[in-house]
């Protein structure tokens, strides 16, 4: 750690350069001349760069530990231009994206063997990775906006990797429209923020907010509302989600990268601007309203899909909704934990979809059966309620710190109650029930531990959870109530006779409540999706 003996400003510049290195190479790979069809060199190079970026992120984490959050200004004018921001959020994201990037690149190597465009694929995926890395460490509005646009440009290229697939083209077109609208809103929002604070540097903006050196105007409300809209568009909130379902028209590693690395941009943006969101109301209303609904929507539709990748896509929609929901109510550390966890989970889930058949064979085909024994259900409910009370009492600081933590822990406990009921009210043997109860406990402990770690990590860099106004509180309570209702219905599922309402719900759910078909028609009617000449199947 030679650099630690240098003057702090020099260290910052050096750190900035080191951080930029993998980003520049990744993005630069895209613009290499079209060489021979031999892809091995570019594959090797891109893997090497992703190792490098992991190394850089470790280095930065160490530095951050010593120096807390800081900015590196390199070539800036009025706070715009080249500057990087290093804080817990950006380094955590940088590390996560680097690791997922490495795994995805390693996976793609053999997966795309024999494809004539393999070299092109690696160029495009490297470009996209570089853009995401740039986005998470951007220190000013301009570079944040540019990298935001780059990520979706890179993604668009990846979606139409197989140019002969009609559905891929449609997906890319839908995505293009939604992304441009999002870019537009983000540009508007950044323009208004710049106008309000007179600088583009994130550091300066956050400082001004902390010191209350700005005038609260309706313009800021508008700016943050636009920011929220832009985040919702990027992170597939209803009704802008349907393009995500068509992205299976491109190789699996792209899906893994998209679901683990790009969808997060929405919650990331909200957390990045947490200081500002704390000062406004309408942006938060918007987020909680749309995201709370998306969460339940994605989660519900997910469970009715027979094709694994489609199911995973709906699941991502739900999780992005939940993460934005948390961010909207100001529980930024919980939102961050949720989407970081989701990234690893979803990358793994996509890359291992090929093992689905093997897993099914290993487990046998019979369904899991609930017993429907009322005593067992009561025991489970009493058990979970007891656990909740005991923990609430013994970990008062954790659970009762504020309204948000209470809401989150209720949702978590509701979910765990599902696990308990599924294990106890079933034909499971005693050993199985015992193991599952241990797992339930594990889930709870992990939740407390990871939540606390992120809380600690973000403590100085993000405003503390503040008191919500009544309307926002009401919205949160409404959604938590809705989740509770859904869980309650699952508790009682053995008693629910498949009536008419149930049948309708099932048929509508498997059609994703017709959002996709509706958007397709809408866009088709407007010019965008001219159908190529009929090819009869």
């Amino acid at each position, binding site marked *: 750690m030679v650099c630690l003996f240098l003057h702090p400003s020099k260290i910052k510049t050096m750190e900035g350069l080191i951080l930029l290195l993998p980003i520049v190479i990744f993005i630069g790979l895209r613009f290499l001349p079209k060489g021979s069809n031999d892809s091995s060199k570019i594959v090797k190079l891109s893997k090497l760069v992703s190792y490098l970026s992991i190394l850089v992120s470790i280095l930065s984490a160490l530095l951050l530990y010593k120096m807390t959050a800081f900015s590196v200004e390199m070539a800036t004018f009025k706070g715009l231009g080249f500057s990087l921001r290093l804080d817990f959020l950006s380094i955590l994201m940088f590390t996560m994206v680097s690791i997922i990037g490495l*795994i995805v690149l*390693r996976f793609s190597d053999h997966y795309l*063997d*024999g494809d*004539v465009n393999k070299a092109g694929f690696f160029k495009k995926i490297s470009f996209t990775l570089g853009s995401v890395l740039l986005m998470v460490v951007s220190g000013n509005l301009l570079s944040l906006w540019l990298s935001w646009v780059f990520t979706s440009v890179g993604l668009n290229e990846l979606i139409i990797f197989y140019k002969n697939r009609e*559905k*891929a083209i449609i997906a890319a077109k839908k995505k293009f429209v939604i992304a441009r609208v999002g870019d537009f809103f983000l540009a508007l929002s950044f323009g208004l923020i710049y106008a309000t604070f007179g600088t583009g540097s994130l550091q300066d903006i956050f400082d001004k907010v902390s010191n209350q050196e700005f005038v609260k105007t309706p313009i800021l409300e508008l700016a943050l509302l636009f920011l929220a809209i832009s985040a919702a568009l990027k992170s597939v909130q209803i009704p802008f989600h349907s393009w995500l379902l068509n992205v299976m028209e491109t*190789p699996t590693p792209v899906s893994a990268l998209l679901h683990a690395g790009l969808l997060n941009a929405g919650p990331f943006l909200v957390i990045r601007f947490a200081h500002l969101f704390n000062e406004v109301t309408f942006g938060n209303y918007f987020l909680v309203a749309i995201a709370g609904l998306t969460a*339940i929507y994605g*989660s519900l539709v997910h*469970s*009715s899909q*027979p*094709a*694994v990748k489609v199911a995973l896509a709906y*699941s991502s929609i739900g*999780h992005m909704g939940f993460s934005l929901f948390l961010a909207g109510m100001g529980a930024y550390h*919980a939102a961050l934990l*949720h989407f970081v*966890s*989701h990234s690893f*989970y979803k990358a*793994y889930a996509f*890359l*291992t979809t*090929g*093992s*689905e*058949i*093997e*897993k*099914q*064979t290993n487990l046998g085909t*019979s*369904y*899991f059966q609930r017993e429907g024994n009322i005593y067992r259900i009561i025991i489970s409910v009493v058990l979970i309620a007891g656990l909740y009370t005991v923990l609430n009492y013994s970990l008062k600081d954790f659970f009762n710190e504020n309204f948000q933590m209470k809401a989150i822990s209720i*949702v*978590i406990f509701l*979910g*765990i109650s*599902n*696990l308990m009921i*599924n294990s106890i009210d079933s*034909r499971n*043997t005693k050993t199985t029930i015992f193991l599952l109860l241990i797992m339930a406990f594990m*889930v709870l402990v992990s939740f407390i531990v*990871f939540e606390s770690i992120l809380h600690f990590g973000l403590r100085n860099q993000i405003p503390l959870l503040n008191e919500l106004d009544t309307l926002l509180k009401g919205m949160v309570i409404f959604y938590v109530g809705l989740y509770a209702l859904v*869980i309650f219905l*699952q508790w009682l599922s053995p008693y629910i006779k*498949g009536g008419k309402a*149930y049948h309708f719900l*099932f048929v509508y*759910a*498997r*059609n994703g409540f*017709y959002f996709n*078909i509706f958007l397709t028609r809408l866009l*088709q009617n407007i010019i965008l999706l001219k159908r190529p000449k*009929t090819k009869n*199947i």
Partner: protein
Amino acid sequence: MENQQLFTLIQSVCQKIAPAWPLRNTIAVNPFLGFSNTRFEIASALLHENGQMQTTMPLTFYLEQCKEGNIDSSLLQKEVQLMLGGLSIQDFLENATKYQFEMASELKIPLVINVINDCSKLNLLEFLVDSVSQWTALFYDETRVFWRKVYPNKNLFDCWKFDAEIDLSPEFMGAHNFRQILKSLPNHEDDAIEKILQELPIPPEFLESYLHGLLLRVVGWSSFISGIDWDMNLYSEKTTNLKSFLAIQLAWEYCFFHSFKDLKIENKWKASWGQFKNRKEDTVLLYRTIFQNVYDKTAQYRLIEKIEKSSSNAPKKTIPLAQVVFCIDVRSEIYRRNLEKVNNEIETIGFAGFFGFPIRFFKPAQNEGQNLCPALLPSSLVVREEGKNQQSSLQAKNKTIVRNQFFKSWKRFKSGVVSAFSFVSPMGIYFLPKLVFNSYGWTRPAISQKSKDVVEYKKGTKHIDISSIDLDTQVATALGALKTMGLISNFAQVVLISGHQATTTNNPHDSGLDCGACGGHSGLINAITATKILNQIEIRERLTAFQIFIPKETIFLACIHNTTTDKIDVMESMIPERVDRERLQLIYTSLEQATALSQMERASRLGITQNIAKSIQYRTIDWSQVRPEWGLSGCSSFIIAPRHRSENVDLQGHTFLHSYDWKKDPDFTILETIITAPMLVTSWINLFYYGSITDPEKLGAGNKTLHNVLGGVGVFEGAAGDLKIGLPMQSVHNGKNLEHLPRRLTVIIDAPIYAIETILNNHPNVRDLITNSWISLYAMNEDGKIHKRYSENKKFVDFKKK
């Protein structure tokens, strides 16, 4: 049309659809099974007209092959002469070059949906296929979706109608009053079919083609449902799910017909029928068929030359060091050749990989067994997996139960509505180490039960319980097996029975690489069962009554040939004390050497240049590997003869080998078995690969990188679309060239021609395959020369080489 007549017609249409099996036990099947009794070129035209399905390659392919010399010009001349009369070969090639970028004509049987699609802004055809596909996938889903299904009964049509009557999507796509029109249809499928066919103006002479076209529109699902019927009919009652599925397709047509009335589709449809009636014969298709015939013949001549050149050795008289029985699989050929090369005292035998033991296998805590036998046979022998003793059996059983229950409950939590949030936040981080470990091949995403079994049976912690097979059955099956494999005398001290299996990771098509004769499973259990039965003294005593004298010192040993690594694992725990260890060591050494040689031979095909053994081993655990091995790619011929007829020929892993000595088969019953079972199966496999190449979209599984697995059933390519049957592109193509060449099976039998002719006359269904050019059959004489070819006139004719 009379009622009776109509339903006979429907039945015959349904029989045109070949079955397909779910991916957990893929069985290669002839996709043209329904056309065995139709000439190849007529079937080609029919499949093209009714379903735009390709049975030959594009002309560019054949022209390329002409240049490379794989299409013999003198043979081509003859074929052109025969099929096109006056045309000279120059003109033929010139025309072919002219047509090469033209598609075969797009004129096809007009379905209502196609007529509507042609004049609609929306892609309704795609919508319809996606809709049907998604619904059927959910109906047959066994593991993923845990919403309780509330259907009135189990009939496919009834259930579909129940759902479709409340589904809004057709109306969103512009089909007015879809639900109302559907409700006006009778509830029973037969009544509905009758009503629909009465109302739709279909020219009666094309009714059959029309119905066939409806099923081919979603050929993946039609085949899958046909497979369900196949299995049901083999084991229990007769079911007609495919008929119900056809009724669903008809209902779509009917509702679309009525809801798009304002597009004047009735007139347009009638016009399309007129066009279709006046269609001309398709020249491109004809040209392709001519090329294909010559392409096949050229290869046949080369093969024959190759076999004849290596003057066959006389059969050895001495008792060999060991005998090793392999599956007839083409992958065995490479290994057998190399094994014989490293030790010419080892005799190898080719036999169907279930070794004549049609098993139903039960694992502990499993209620429905696996059928380890070819799809043509019902399984009959029940065997169970047991532990070392009663206690460990019980333990294993409990462990399985707990594991299954645990993961099922856990999955409910993990993917439940809302509870998924409580799963992801705390538990998501734990997937980071999993990602890393899998990426470097330190762990696998799912346990490979097959590989675990090999280890456990080898160590002896598990064994097979055959006690539920009674002694008479054991004797009868053993007798049949020994006779068919020709092992009735001259027993070596060690007889290895080698099943085979593949090891791959994260590969939905894994079971397609396993033993087809064992129903798309590993051959290990069959091998163990066979050796267990044959090693019993009581069985051997009773076999003496049939003139089979197995020496006391002879032991049968089960082993497993891993086709991905070409390693052979012997189940050592089953070796008795008395065996000659030195001899065993010698055999082991030979097996290891043969493994090394086979790996070297296969490495070039896999594109491996260095660290061969290590690279091949890594393929078995590489979660991103889309080409772990080449499977049966390249299979194009089948030799039914004693091994010494082909012993010195390098058949490059393209040939199925069945050992057969007609001199030991006085009444030719064994030959009859081979011709009616293994030969049929090899043709199934061959045409399965063939179809996956000629029509990669409809008969193949498309691109592996896009595969989207369905619960317990198969894969979609991309987000939706038809179910994909057949082989993925990566299994037959290396990115630059085809690894499997489109050649129909060539069979060479070493037996007297009168015997073969009699057998074929007794089995017209097999004979049809040959006379209609799905298989070519040649006979070998006593000098090892191929002297006769089976002709379309149902007898052998002299075969003249040019």
